[in-house]
């Protein structure tokens, strides 16, 4: 039997060369991190240089240190966290509704040819439509309410998620479907055991893109709709703008950026884990 062991398999069975596993993984994290840190440092340096050049007054364009100081101040206030929590809650709600709706629609389109020709065509149009275009409609329909904001987020995220899942379902290897059917999986069981898992990598890609759209839509909507007593992130951004408080404005922008990046990297981690498990990653997996 030994003759049949693939060479790459044998090498992966053998203990990895020398170095301590913890140190190795720390080194890997560092090698992924330093280019990003470098980019941040570069942006901060350029920013500081522009401020030093005296192109704009300190009030119109504060330096990075004063903005960081302001951010630290914000971070020590409870109200700020309440605002972040409100925004994240809206994002989560809208995103969850979008995901459920997208799954239902994508499966219908995949299963029913007529749905593909009708709803499928509409979906392509929706995907290219900026979701903020839904806002006036949402406000007239639902007033300046939580529901209006949710509607805009859903319309932003759902088409991208559905498109990802649909392309995953459409591109399942036909041999896997034959195998599933030959093993006796039919209808729903074929979806559960073969098609959905096979489509999962593309689906996660769609979820990731859907999050980016949801987050953008939410920020646009929050800038324009005041629907709660608490100041959401978008609302804080808006009021900082009205008060000409550039320090606060930049501090909030940093928060928006960081939240976007953190959630996106969570999806990235999920994506990598799934691709590794599915054997779609080459090299050292």
């Amino acid at each position, binding site marked *: 039997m030994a003759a049949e062991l693939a060479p790459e398999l044998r090498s992966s069975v053998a203990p990895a060369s020398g170095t301590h596993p913890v140190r190795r993984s720390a080194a890997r994290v560092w090698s992924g991190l330093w280019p990003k840190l470098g980019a941040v440092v570069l942006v901060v340096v350029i920013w500081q240089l522009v401020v030093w050049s005296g192109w704009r007054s300190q009030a119109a364009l504060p330096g990075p240190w004063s903005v960081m100081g302001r951010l630290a101040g914000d971070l020590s206030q409870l109200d700020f966290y309440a605002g972040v929590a409100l925004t994240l809650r809206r994002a989560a709600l809208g995103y969850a509704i979008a995901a459920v709706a997208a799954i239902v629609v994508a499966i219908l389109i995949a299963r029913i040819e007529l749905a593909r020709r009708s709803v499928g065509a509409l979906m392509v149009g929706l995907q290219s439509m900026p979701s903020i275009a839904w806002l006036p409609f949402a406000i007239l329909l639902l007033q300046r309410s939580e529901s209006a904001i949710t509607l805009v987020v859903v319309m932003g995220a759902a088409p991208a998620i559905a498109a990802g899942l649909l392309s995953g379902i459409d591109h399942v290897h036909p041999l896997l479907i034959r*195998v599933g059917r030959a*093993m006796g999986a039919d209808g729903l069981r074929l979806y559960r*055991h073969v098609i959905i898992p096979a489509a999962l990598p593309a689906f996660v890609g769609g979820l990731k893109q859907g999050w980016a759209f949801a987050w953008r839509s939410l920020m646009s909507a929050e800038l324009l709709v005041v629907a709660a007593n608490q100041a959401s992130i978008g609302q804080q951004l808006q009021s900082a703008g009205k008060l000409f408080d550039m320090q606060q404005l930049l501090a909030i922008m940093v928060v928006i950026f960081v939240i976007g990046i953190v959630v996106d990297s969570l999806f990235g981690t999920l994506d990598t884990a799934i691709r590794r498990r*599915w054997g779609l990653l080459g090299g050292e997996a």
Partner: protein
Amino acid sequence: MLALSEKHALSVERLSVAFSHGDQLLMALDGTTFEVKRGEFVCVVGASGSGKSTLLNVLAGLDRPSGGRAHVHGRVALIFQESALLPWLTALGNVELALELRGVRATARKSLAFDLLDRVHLAGFEKRRPHELSGGMKQRVALARALAQDADVLLMDEPFGALDAISRDLLHLELERIWSESRLTILFVTHNAREAVRLGDRVLVFTSRPGRVAHEVRVELPRPRSLDSPELAVIAGRITERLKHEMTNGS
């Protein structure tokens, strides 16, 4: 039980399968007739385009015949050239899924799956995913999965075509052992005449375009046969001649 009492595991009667290709009608199979006895190991050789894969698809119920009848008595399992394992499941998971779809209770599945992988000499590799296995090992898992389906008839579509010579030799032995231990009936499609003579009780030679049984060879050599034995080479040589003749006539 009625099926078991019958002598034939598989019968094909004047089977025709046509595919539309543009406005043309292509005959993949035209009036094919043959039978396979219960427990028999039959190989089908033919050039590419002789409708061999179509034949297996019809027998497995994945394609519809345009005319005639194809009937399998009992359960069918298919094995393809690509192992077609589900890449997100481990070797064990792939076998377990076949058991689940067959309706085996959850509590019994795991130990049964372990036993089946042990039977194809993959003990210790249960937790590997397909991309972590060699081509030969993947086909062993596919074999275990087919056994998990508790099939009476195993349909194999050039299963070892992509393997290196040594893995292929080992799998020939393995398949022969499993076949002789069980009451399996095997219909094995290949384009390799030596492989067909190595494994089959009978070899059916298919014509090209449309496919039909042109010739039948009964192989009386004792088992296990060696791919390199001169007796085997003589029979395989005759079949290859026949195939060449069919191909030059066909085109």
